[in-house]
């Protein structure tokens, strides 16, 4: 945890030094974003390709509901899918609503027996974190698209519905910060979770927290000229990069941290974003007796044949009156 914190401080120092003293905006605003985006794209595709390269030799879904067998027994369509539609449904529930995590419960030993208690906080915080992250990213699309699509404006409008403060405080920002904070504190204070945590678990939480905080600082405290920011981003998109002078330093801090996240993403556990789609215990229909699943590397193996077996036991079999092939 300390190490991760140290790492974040170093990351913060880089743009502050480079921008504040070095005036290296060309580096911070153009070279690094290009590099980061490129590394993210290549890295992400490479990782998914690495997984996809390994085949799925056996059909091993985890069945979490009744199988489809006899016509009068109601099968569980989503929790134990028997066709592709069911699998799509299962994956949808898994990815959009975190179905499996929703099952979570907590075990304690009291008076020599296990007690099961509800434990939905992890599910709730995870769901809030991911959904608000998604909405925040979508909201940011207004800096990437000209004209800004109606749906993006709608998201921003809905997100700022309560119109607290000027500029409006976004609900997703609050939710995001609370969820990340909860997930971080959970790692620090729940002994079991702390025990299994690696630096690679604290670091991404601190990183996205820093990104969110720098964004909020930029929006509400150290305001920057958003028109200039958009000009910069659009210039990057059309490959005619140009740094408009006078965007505040805080923007470059925010941007640098985002670049950091993009670079870090493909080499980290954050790749669960791509991996969850490929998980063979979830994305296969439980129909392995109905339809043969093919193993591409299935190879012949040494077996003990019936002939060998009978050769060893023929006399005993005959004596017991068990039919044999060779008398």
């Amino acid at each position: 945890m300390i190490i991760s914190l140290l790492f974040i401080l170093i990351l913060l120092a880089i743009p502050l030094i480079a921008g504040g003293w070095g005036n290296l905006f060309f580096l911070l605003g153009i070279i690094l974003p290009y590099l980061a985006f490129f590394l993210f794209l290549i890295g992400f595709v490479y990782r998914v390709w690495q997984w996809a390269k390994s085949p799925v030799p056996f059909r091993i879904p985890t069945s979490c509901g009744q199988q489809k067998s006899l016509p009068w027994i109601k099968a569980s369509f989503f929790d134990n899918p028997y066709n592709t539609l069911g699998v799509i449904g299962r994956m949808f529930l898994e990815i959009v609503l975190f179905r499996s995590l929703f099952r979570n419960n907590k075990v304690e030993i009291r008076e020599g027996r296990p007690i099961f208690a509800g434990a939905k906080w992890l599910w709730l915080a995870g769901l809030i974190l991911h959904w608000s992250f998604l909405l925040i990213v979508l909201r940011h699309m207004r800096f990437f698209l000209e004209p800004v699509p109606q749906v993006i404006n709608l998201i921003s409008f809905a997100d700022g519905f309560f119109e607290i403060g000027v500029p409006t405080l976004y609900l997703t920002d609050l939710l995001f910060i609370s969820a990340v904070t909860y997930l971080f504190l959970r790692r620090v204070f729940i002994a079991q979770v702390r025990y299994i945590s690696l630096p690679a678990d604290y670091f991404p939480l601190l990183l996205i927290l820093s990104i969110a905080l720098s964004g909020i600082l930029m929006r509400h405290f150290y305001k920057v000229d958003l028109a200039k920011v958009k000009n910069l981003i659009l210039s990057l998109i059309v490959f005619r990069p140009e740094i408009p002078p006078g965007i505040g330093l805080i923007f470059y801090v925010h941007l640098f941290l985002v670049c950091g996240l993009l670079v870090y993403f493909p080499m980290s556990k954050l790749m669960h974003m791509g991996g969850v789609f490929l998980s063979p215990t979830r994305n296969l229909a439980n129909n392995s007796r109905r339809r043969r699943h093919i193993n591409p590397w299935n190879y012949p193996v040494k077996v003990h044949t019936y002939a060998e077996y009978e050769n060893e036991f023929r006399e005993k079999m005959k004596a017991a009156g068990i039919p044999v092939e060779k008398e």
Partner: protein
Amino acid sequence: MSLAKMPKPEDLAKIDLQPPRQGWMDTPVEFRPGTWCYSAAPKNLKILGLPNPREWQPADVDWKLPANWPEIILQGMKDRLSRFRSFKLFMDICVRCGACADKCHFFIGSGDPKNMPVLRAELLRSVYRRYFTTTGKLLGRLAGARDLTVDVLKEWFYYFYQCTECRRCSVFCPYGIDQAEITMMGRELLNLVGCNINWIMEPVANCYRVGNHLGIQPHGIKDSLEFFADDIADRTGVRVEVPINRKGAEILFVTPSGDLFADPGTFTCMGYLMLFHEIGLDYTWSTYASEGGNFGLFVDHELMKRLNAKIYAEAKRLRVKWILGGECGHMWRVLHQYMDTMNGPADFLEEPVSPLTGTKFENAKSTKMVHIAEFTADLIRHNKLKLDPSRNDHLKVTFHDSCNPARAMGLFEEPRYILKKVCNYFYEMPEETIREKTFCCGGGAGLGTDENMEMRLRGGFPRAKAVKYVREKYGVNRLACICAIDRATLQTLMEYWVPGVEVTGLHELVGNALVMKGEKEREVSLRGEPLLTKTKVDHHER
């Protein structure tokens, strides 16, 4: 280690789930008696042609590993990463959210943090990172990576043989990461350097050569079945036939050999014989394919295939139309998820159709193997059986979902439907402990041996406590299950944690309730308990 040497249940139940101060990478494994299984005897490895047969024990300092063992392991990892997407993916995408942590029966029963599925997987992941990822190679421990040392190997052995591959953690994992899959890979790697346990390798060697785990020879199988037929005649007055290796039968019946050998499985076996006789099933037993179970699953994929091959080979030789499988847990994982892929296509068989009801078992139309619970539920649904559930009135029954039929199949309603038809008193255990959330018996995946007793009792602790709950609440005295390993291990578990509860297979209860043509009035159950209806009547007459 016998039950008598175990600490008192109330002492064993003093479990602290809080992790220690010292980090797991700095805590070497300690081979405490009662928590591990003996090594495989060299003769068994030789029968199977497996590497590094030798005399050794896990508690020894020197494991007599081949000189180049790290290369063997790392090469083995590389092979498997390229052959199994599950393995590669599960090494990469865990976020250590901890949802799986308190889902493992071994963790709940022992409090040992390395039994949290996430950490058990990290034992392997840390080595994966060190040798197969850039960050691990560069940053080492900072990236959660560590060198492959003898101590790490010993830790793998200890904890991968402290996982029963029950898949409960994978139900709760947001990415479906399945510790069973990781344990299977870990055990495959250990097997490459000859680190395996005898409770698995002896059954495997037996099954390979003699046809079944227990090494029962053909005439022994016949003796057992005929002995059961005698017992059935004694209880019911009906003599059932025992068809063995009969060519041209319609159906080949395959069940775990444990049912032929040890109580209470034997009573389940009697139930099968009675049912098949009563419905006039045209079927046969096989002495060559006399094992439905497959301990190869607990060693490696290749060995699983080598053992499983016999079932289709024998079905072909005997020219049957389809195959019916008895009550067993991991057996059904292999039959349902692996057999057709490994040893199919079974194009020499026909799509299974019940000869009594005409029901087409479309869910088994490729593999051509039907679960006995599916078969019997269909019979009852179509009123093909005359049942008198009051003959089980001396029993208050609860049902233990066996891990593999639950989480690798989804066989939940079929056995419950049968249970409700054959007995009048059926009570479910708490929701968190049944169906897809069912708890293991603690002795699955080849760990049901006596020297491992403490760990078995700890692993079975959550299951046992759920049984205790329904015992106290409803007076449950019988624990029904559809797994041969359960029938062997739950009995011990009950003796220790919940005295007064005995274990039964589903078809023992069917056998009790089954009204047979030409039977005499039943006075006792299959296991010889006086029937309650009978005693009541006697009392009344007096």
